[in-house]
């Protein structure tokens, strides 16, 4: 079956990004920032983890396997994202994400069949983790337990992709076995976190951060210039937040208590969005076939993201609500600035390219 041409992929990406915008605004609404009625009380976590990341990663996987059927995953994700924003009932939304998850698993299995290795298996496991989260959400009617499996989806996806590249530095058999052990510990940690015990997951994430610091090609690419160096700095700064998030989970914070907001957002904003910032300049050209030439302005939103997250964590742990709220706003503005820089860079590059 043929691949879907890039113009057909753009609406899927837009559906995912609608989820990002609504999700970020819904998060800010919780801090009391004035927001449009549309996002008042909207499910922040579901919008970010399912509508945005679920759609985005299933689109990325569909592009990788280059099969038309694989795009039904991000199509379901994008449509469901819009339905969720429009206020569709939870059941229909969960069913939409269920379809997206099943196709994501099938596409991941397709990549795994082409090259059966630990890293492709971990990517498939990540997709399964997302579907487990959607099913838990459907069953429990609340995302409380599901959110851990969605977090697991992102962590496993990133871990699988980094393991793939770390082969370049020749990972020893011992370190490979250690990686598999850490992945097993993460899955065990997700089960425990679903029933309120986050310390195993915290320990596993600290171990993963340590493994990545040691084995990832990012450390070597610090000596490179331009885009590879920028990506390396995104990755390594993200691993620091992964370590911090894992440490916070060791204390098993409960929702609403000090440490809870920090634990969730060091992992999702500090770790995951640093990965997004690093990879967007190569994933956007791959998905849309637009060039996003590197320039040093890429560092601006990255620095903003990390500084505002540090403020947010200090505000959370020090029980300073205003500082936490401003930190969250800083996170949102950094993400908005990043999207603006990506769109502007791609548009200017397109205008400069002579048409054939």
């Amino acid at each position, binding site marked *: 079956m043929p691949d879907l041409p890039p113009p057909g992929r753009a609406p899927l990406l837009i559906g995912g990004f609608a989820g990002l915008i609504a999700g970020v605004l819904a998060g800010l609404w919780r801090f009391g920032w004035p927001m449009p009625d549309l996002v008042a009380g909207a499910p922040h976590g579901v919008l970010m983890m399912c509508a945005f990341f679920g759609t985005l990663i299933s689109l990325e996987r569909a592009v*990788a396997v280059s099969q038309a059927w694989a795009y039904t995953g991000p199509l379901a994700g994008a449509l469901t994202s819009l339905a969720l924003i429009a206020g569709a009932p939870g059941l229909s939304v969960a069913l939409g994400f269920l379809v997206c998850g099943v196709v994501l698993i099938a596409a991941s299995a397709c*990549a795994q069949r082409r090259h059966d290795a630990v890293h492709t298996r971990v990517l498939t496991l990540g997709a399964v983790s997302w579907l487990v989260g959607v099913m838990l959400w459907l069953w429990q009617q609340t995302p409380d337990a599901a959110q851990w499996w969605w977090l697991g989806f992102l962590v496993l996806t990133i871990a699988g992709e980094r393991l793939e590249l770390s082969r370049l530095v*020749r990972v020893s058999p011992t370190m490979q076995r250690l990686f598999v052990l850490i992945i097993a510990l993460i899955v065990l940690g997700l089960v425990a976190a679903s029933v309120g015990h986050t310390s195993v997951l915290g320990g596993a994430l600290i171990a993963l951060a340590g493994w990545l610091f040691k084995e990832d090609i990012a450390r070597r690419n610090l000596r490179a210039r331009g885009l590879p160096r920028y*990506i390396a700095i995104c990755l390594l700064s993200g691993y620091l937040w992964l370590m911090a998030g894992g440490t916070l989970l060791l204390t098993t914070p409960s929702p609403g208590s000090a440490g809870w907001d920090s634990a969730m957002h060091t992992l999702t904003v500090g770790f995951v969005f640093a990965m997004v910032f690093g*990879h967007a300049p190569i994933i956007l050209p791959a998905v849309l076939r637009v060039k996003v030439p590197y320039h040093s302005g890429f560092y601006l939103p990255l620095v903003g993201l990390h500084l505002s997250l540090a403020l947010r964590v200090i505000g959370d742990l020090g029980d300073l609500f205003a500082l936490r709220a401003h930190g969250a706003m800083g996170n949102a503005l950094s993400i908005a600035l990043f999207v603006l820089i990506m769109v502007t860079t791609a548009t200017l590059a397109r205008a400069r390219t002579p048409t054939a």
Partner: protein
Amino acid sequence: MNPHPAAPDASAIREALRAVQDPEIGMNIVDLGLVYDIAVEGNRVAVRMTMTSPACPMGQMILDDVDEAIARLCPDRERSVELVWSPEWSPALMSESAKAHFGWQDDDA
């Protein structure tokens, strides 16, 4: 008889492909060992290559860059760039300079 006597041979095309980078790794696809085969037959240039992973979404973009690099070198030739998954890529296929960059020792396979 070759209608393009001054046309570049496979080694010249291989050199031209050093301009194509894997942007994530920051290294060219020739040193990474991704280019399996370059055949120049009559008016046709055929390249068979792979990616480091089948889950890599940059595949088609890199194939386009390869096509462009060949077109710059010999615009009059027919071009075919094929993505293959067999044999599987392995880090052992990297050039000596790439292995040295990633810190491989002499006794590493």
